[in-house]
């Protein structure tokens, strides 16, 4: 065993360089995919403050009320659509029964014609 030998310094420098490159790359990728900062800038906050007064609150309340009404209407529409679907299924089922009945009548008539010959 050659324990007196040493690993040359340049090996570690290259290793450190490669490690630093990987590290920088990981940080860069993370920073890039981080998206927008939460909370926005001060400018947006000032703008938000300027927009919020009593009339805008009334408008917001009206909008929420309208949205709620639309939701209720939408729910009613959905209920109507569900009932219409149910009626359609019933109609198709009845139609099936009537076709069956018709098939029986035709069969009877065919039998009678066959017997009369």
């Amino acid at each position, binding site marked *: *065993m*050659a*324990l007196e*030998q*040493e*690993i040359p310094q340049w*090996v*570690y420098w290259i*290793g*450190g360089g*490669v*490690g*630093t490159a*990987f*590290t920088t790359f*990981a*940080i*860069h*990728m*993370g*920073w890039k*995919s*981080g*998206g*927008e*900062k*939460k909370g926005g800038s001060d400018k947006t906050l000032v703008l938000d403050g300027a927009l919020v007064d009593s009339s805008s609150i009334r408008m917001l309340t009206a909008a929420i009320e309208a949205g709620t009404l639309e939701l209720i209407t939408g729910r009613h529409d959905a209920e109507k659509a569900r009932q219409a679907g149910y009626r359609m299924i019933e109609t198709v089922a009845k139609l099936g029964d009537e076709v069956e009945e018709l098939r029986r009548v035709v069969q009877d008539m065919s039998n009678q014609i066959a017997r009369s010959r």
Partner: protein
Amino acid sequence: MTTIFLRVKHRFRERASEWFCAANLTQFGLSLLHPSQTFDSYAFAAFRNLGEQTTGVFFFLVGFTWFLGLIVNGARQSATSTIRLVCGALGTVSYGLLGLGLLGSYVLTGIWSTGIGNYMLVSILGLYSLYWIAVDKKVNG
């Protein structure tokens, strides 16, 4: 104190890899600072000219500072993410160099160490942590 603990606990899941790396670096530093001559082992043949005490102090300081960064940043989101980022970068490169050094020891002694693959993998875990620290810093400051 309870608030700090609760906030650290709240973010622990997403930062588990960081906590692991910080704890591992700290324990590695403390192990080297132990009076026994760890670098006399064949596995550390390539590290002997670095000095056990100096290497131990370096690893301990990086790991411990990372710990402090995690505790404070767990409680104050925007305060110490830079500390975490710097310690993460130092730790990741150090882990890679550890793996490389153990590989060098293998070249010198012909004895393969489990630490070679182990520290290389921890270095990759460090890179993963760094990625998410950077995301965290960008999103939360």
